[in-house]
């Protein structure tokens, strides 16, 4: 295993120290239990947005703490959901008496830990709501699975609902908006290589030199199917088709297209893939009105990408465009 770390068991704590040093103007890091909070939290009268999940997906979630996005993020161990006491402490630190919305990616661990935290915080008299995001079309959503995973759509949800909270929407409105985003966002990812979890020391799966994995998760877990490697046109076509046909997105839809790197894929490839996706969507008459391109929901050093489409309306577009000032997303301010 080749990593710039000291000890697998201190990776997250040490990275948080670096995050705090790098972005002291935007956020504060609390060490035990570990959470990242907006520097100016709590904001009285503002709905607080709190998220979290396993580490190793950076900049998700800590890189999205700041004005117009998250009030707090709770990082678990690498690829392991945080514990309820982290979430509870974060909620108590940042809530501004206007309620708290928990943004939870749909994994059994995250759901159970946030659920427990919500119970604890509610017992303290804080109005806590939970929205679960499950945008990954790779997973069959049925009573016979844990349901779809939350992946790339999480960033879009955090940005849009963060903007709503920032402009003063109340908890009901924020919760309803979050559900609207969930209802209109879909993602699909793929990997060329696996990643190595520090305490495991070897890749989570292996792919031959001529194979790729479609429908990959963001925790180094295998995906839906292993198929022969294809040129970018073929790869992106698979992702576009998977995403578009699921909702489905149809001719005339206005969308936000998010082309995401799993971490190890260089920007030159990502922009290339983004160009292909724009072309394929144009062919279907789907109008890309906003874009995000970069490594935002990653899986350590995994090479691969995902596509996320969000169906836009005027309000979602306005909230997407609204000012945001976080380590990883910043505009308008």
């Amino acid at each position: 295993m080749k990593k710039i770390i000291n000890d697998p068991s201190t990776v997250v704590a040490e990275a948080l120290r670096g995050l705090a040093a790098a972005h002291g103007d935007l956020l504060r890091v609390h060490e035990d239990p570990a959470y990242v909070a907006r520097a100016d939290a709590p904001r009285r009268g503002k709905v607080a947005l709190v998220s979290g999940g396993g580490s190793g997906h950076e900049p998700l979630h800590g890189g999205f703490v700041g004005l117009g996005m998250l009030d707090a993020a709770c990082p678990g161990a690498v690829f392991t959901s945080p514990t309820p006491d982290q979430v509870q402490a974060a909620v108590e630190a940042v809530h501004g008496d206007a309620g708290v919305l928990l943004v939870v990616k749909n994994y059994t661990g995250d759901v159970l830990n946030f659920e427990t935290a919500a119970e604890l915080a509610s017992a303290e008299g804080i109005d806590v709501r939970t929205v679960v995001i499950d945008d990954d079309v790779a997973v069959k959503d049925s009573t016979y699975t844990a349901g779809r995973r939350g992946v790339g759509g999480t960033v879009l949800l955090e940005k849009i609902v963060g903007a709503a909270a920032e402009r003063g929407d109340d908890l009901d409105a924020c919760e309803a908006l979050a559900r609207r985003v969930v209802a209109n966002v879909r993602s699909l990812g793929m990997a060329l290589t696996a990643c190595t979890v520090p305490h495991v020391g070897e890749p989570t799966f292996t792919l031959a030199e001529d194979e790729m994995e479609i429908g990959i998760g963001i925790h180094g877990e295998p995906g839906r199917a292993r198929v022969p490697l294809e040129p970018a046109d073929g790869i992106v076509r698979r992702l576009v088709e998977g995403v578009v046909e699921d909702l489905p997105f149809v001719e005339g839809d206005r969308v936000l297209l998010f082309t995401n790197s799993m971490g190890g894929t260089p920007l030159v490839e990502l922009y290339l893939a983004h160009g292909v996706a724009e072309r394929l969507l144009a062919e279907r008459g789907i109008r890309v009105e906003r874009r995000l391109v970069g490594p935002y929901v990653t899986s350590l050093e995994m090479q691969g990408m995902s596509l996320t489409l969000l169906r836009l309306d005027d309000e979602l577009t306005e909230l997407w465009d609204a000012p945001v000032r976080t380590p990883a997303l910043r505009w308008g301010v």
Partner: protein
Amino acid sequence: MTCTAEDLVRALRAVAAAVADHRAELTELDRVIGDADHGENLRRGFLAVVTKVDSADLDTPTAVLKAVGTTLISTVGGASGPLYGTAFLRAANAVTEKSEVDGPAAAEALRAALGGVVARGRAEIGDKTMVDALSPAVDAAVAAAEAGGDVAAVLAAAAEAADRGAESTTPLVARKGRASYLGERSAGHLDPGARSTALILRALASSAGAR
């Protein structure tokens, strides 16, 4: 033979040692159909449990079990953290007001633990989860207690059944947890949580039997 708070603490040290010894095995099982963290999650959790029960002054079985539950919840994370944590909290509730746990109480505690896991995780037998190990363990424990078994006998029966229950997960297609994302590809592999349940029960039984 019964089990005091002190016996329980000794048994938990044995559990922590067993989990640490099998860290790599659990991680490897979870690598194949999950995300390769189950071994590390439980190692971290039970290390914290040992530190906790060693430092706090816990003089009843219920106090010990409660400390275990809250510690696991606040240190494990993942799916297994709240599940095992809830299991221990429910077990703690089942033995309130007892200063020693006898055979029937142990069976009752295990039944309560299973109830907690199911309440949180909503898994059924055959979903390829820890329930597949814990549920037959409870049945065996109850039967052993009804047959007049002491704590050691009850736990031995539970461990035995949990081992077989864990094995039974291999051919199953997962319907809960992370392994369910794999669909059919999850068949042919032992469930890491079922395996860890069997391991934990085996360590508890051995500790009780060694007295």
